[in-house]
C-alpha cells in the first residue's frame, strides 16, 4: 500500500515509512502500540533538539578570515621577509676546509692548463716538423749531413779524451759545420747573443758600481741648488787636464758616441753634486748618464737635477771611474767639453732623458728649494722607436742639425 504522505526530509520519510508499516499491522496489539509511541516520540524529540549557532561577534581562529573582512580593492600586504638558511656545523666546517685547499686547487689547475698548452704546442711543433721533413727545401739534406758528419767526427776524435772533451769537441765541430752551412743565421745569432751579453755585463757593472757608491750619493743633494749660480765661477784651468784624462778611459769597445758621452757624463751630473769633492756622488750620476745626449750638455749644465742620476742604469761602467778624481771643476768641464760633445750624434734614448732634463731646470734653479730625488722613468732602448736615430746607426749621421 503506497503511502500518500509528502516527506520533507529523510527523518520524515523514515517516519512515514514506519507509520505506513504500523498501519498495516495495527491489529497486532499492544506490542505494536509501544512501537507506535516510540516512533511518534522521535520527531517530537527532534523538535526539541537545539542547534548551536555562532554569532558574528564571537572570537574566531586567526588563520580564518570571513568574507566581510577581506579587502575588496587590494589584497592585504603580507608582512613576511625572506631569511637565508643558517649553515650548520658540518657545512661551515666543509667551507673552512674548502677555503684552505683553494690555493692548492688553483695551483694544480694552473699547472694542468700549462701542461695542456705545452702538450698542444708540442703536438703542433711535431706536426710542423713532419710537414717540413716530408718536403724539405733544396739543400737541406746535404747541410744536415755535413753537420751530422762533423759532429760524428768530433765524437771520434775525442773518444779517448775526458768527459768534457767528449762533449765539447763534437758540439764545437757541429756548431762549426752549422756556421758553414748557415752563415747568415749564425751571424744573426751571434749578434743577438753578443748584444744580450753586452747589456748583461753593463747592467752587472752598473749595479756593482751603484752598490759601491750608494753611501755618498745622499750627501750631494742639498748642495745642488746653489751650484747653477756659481757654475761660471768655477776655475777654468782645472777642466783641461780633466778633459784630457776623460777620453782615454773611455777607449773601450763601445759605440762611438759613448767616448764623447764620458766627458759629458762628467759634466751632466757634476753640477748637481757639490764640486767640493763628492767624487762618489759624481760617479753615480756619470754611469747613469752614459747614453745621454752630448748636445744637451749645454742646457743640462744649468739644471742636471738629481733625477738624472736615476736614469740610464745601463751606461758604461768604465767611463765614470776617472770622474771621481776630476769632479772638482764640473762646470769648467762642461765648458770645455761642450764643443766636441755637440758635434757627435747621440742615440735616441739619450734624447728622452735629455729632454726631461730641461723640464727639471726650473726646479733646480729655484733658490732655496731642495731638489728631492725622484725616480725617473727610463725607457728601455730596445722598446723605443728610434726612427732614424737607431743606436746602431749612431756613427752614420747625426740627429742634431
Amino acid at each position, binding site marked *: 500500500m503506497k503511502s500518500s504522505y509528502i516527506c520533507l526530509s529523510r527523518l520524515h520519510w523514515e517516519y512515514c515509512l514506519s507509520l505506513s508499516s504500523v498501519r498495516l499491522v495495527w491489529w497486532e496489539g499492544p506490542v505494536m502500540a509501544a512501537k507506535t509511541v516510540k516512533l511518534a516520540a522521535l520527531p517530537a524529540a527532534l523538535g526539541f533538539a537545539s542547534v548551536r549557532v555562532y554569532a558574528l561577534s564571537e572570537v574566531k581562529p586567526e588563520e580564518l578570515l570571513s568574507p566581510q573582512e577581506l579587502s575588496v580593492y587590494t589584497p592585504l600586504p603580507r608582512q*613576511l621577509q*625572506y631569511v*637565508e*638558511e643558517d*649553515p650548520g656545523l*658540518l657545512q661551515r666546517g666543509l*667551507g673552512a676546509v*674548502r677555503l684552505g685547499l683553494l690555493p692548492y686547487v688553483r695551483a694544480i689547475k694552473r699547472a694542468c692548463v700549462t701542461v695542456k698548452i705545452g702538450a698542444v704546442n708540442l703536438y703542433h711543433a711535431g706536426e710542423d716538423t713532419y710537414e717540413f721533413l716530408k718536403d724539405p727545401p733544396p739543400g737541406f739534406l746535404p747541410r744536415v749531413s755535413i753537420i751530422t758528419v762533423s759532429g760524428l767526427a768530433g765524437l771520434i776524435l775525442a773518444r779517448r779524451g775526458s768527459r768534457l772533451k767528449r762533449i765539447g769537441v763534437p758540439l764545437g765541430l757541429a756548431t762549426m759545420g752549422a756556421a758553414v752551412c748557415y752563415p747568415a743565421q749564425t751571424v744573426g745569432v751571434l749578434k743577438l747573443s753578443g748584444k744580450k751579453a753586452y747589456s748583461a755585463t753593463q747592467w752587472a757593472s752598473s749595479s756593482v758600481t751603484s752598490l759601491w757608491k750608494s753611501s755618498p750619493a745622499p750627501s750631494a743633494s742639498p748642495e745642488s741648488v746653489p751650484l747653477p749660480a756659481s757654475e761660471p765661477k768655477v776655475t777654468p784651468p782645472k777642466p783641461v787636464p780633466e778633459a784630457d784624462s776623460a777620453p782615454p778611459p773611455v777607449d773601450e769597445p763601445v759605440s762611438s758616441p759613448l767616448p764623447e758621452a764620458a766627458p759629458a757624463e762628467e759634466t751632466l751630473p757634476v753640477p748637481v753634486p757639490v764640486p767640493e769633492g763628492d767624487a762618489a756622488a759624481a760617479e753615480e750620476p756619470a754611469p747613469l748618464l752614459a747614453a745621454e745626449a752630448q748636445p744637451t750638455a749645454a742646457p743640462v749644465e744649468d739644471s742636471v737635477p738629481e733625477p738624472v742620476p736615476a736614469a740610464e742604469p745601463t751606461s758604461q761602467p768604465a767611463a765614470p771611474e776617472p770622474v771621481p778624481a776630476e769632479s772638482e771643476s764640473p762646470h769648467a768641464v762642461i765648458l770645455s767639453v761642450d764643443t766636441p760633445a755637440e758635434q757627435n750624434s747621440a742615440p735616441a734614448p739619450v734624447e728622452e732623458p735629455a729632454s726631461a732634463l730641461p723640464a727639471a731646470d726650473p726646479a733646480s734653479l729655484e733658490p732655496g728649494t731642495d731638489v728631492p730625488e725622484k725616480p725617473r722613468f727610463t725607457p728601455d732602448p730596445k722598446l723605443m722607436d728610434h726612427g732614424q736615430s737607431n743606436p746602431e746607426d749612431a756613427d752614420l749621421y747625426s740627429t742634431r742639425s
Partner: protein
Amino acid sequence: MSEKELGQKWDRCLADTAVKLGAGLGLGIVFSVVFFKRRTWPIAFGSGAGLGMAYSNCQHDFRSPYLLHGHMVKEQ
C-alpha cells in the same frame, strides 16, 4: 653566479652528500645485520642510494643559479 655563491653551493652539496651517504650506509648496515644475515649488498645498496640522492640534489642546485635556500618569516 659569484665565486662566493658557488662556494656556498659546494659546501651545501658536500654536506648533503656526507649526510645522505652516512644515512644510507647506516640503514644498509642495519638492514644487513637484522634482515639479511650480514650480507654486503644492503650496505652497498644503501650507500649507493644515499650517494645518488645527494648527487641529484647537487645537480639540481648547480643547474638552478637563482634557486634560494631559506624560508619566509613574519616580520616582528
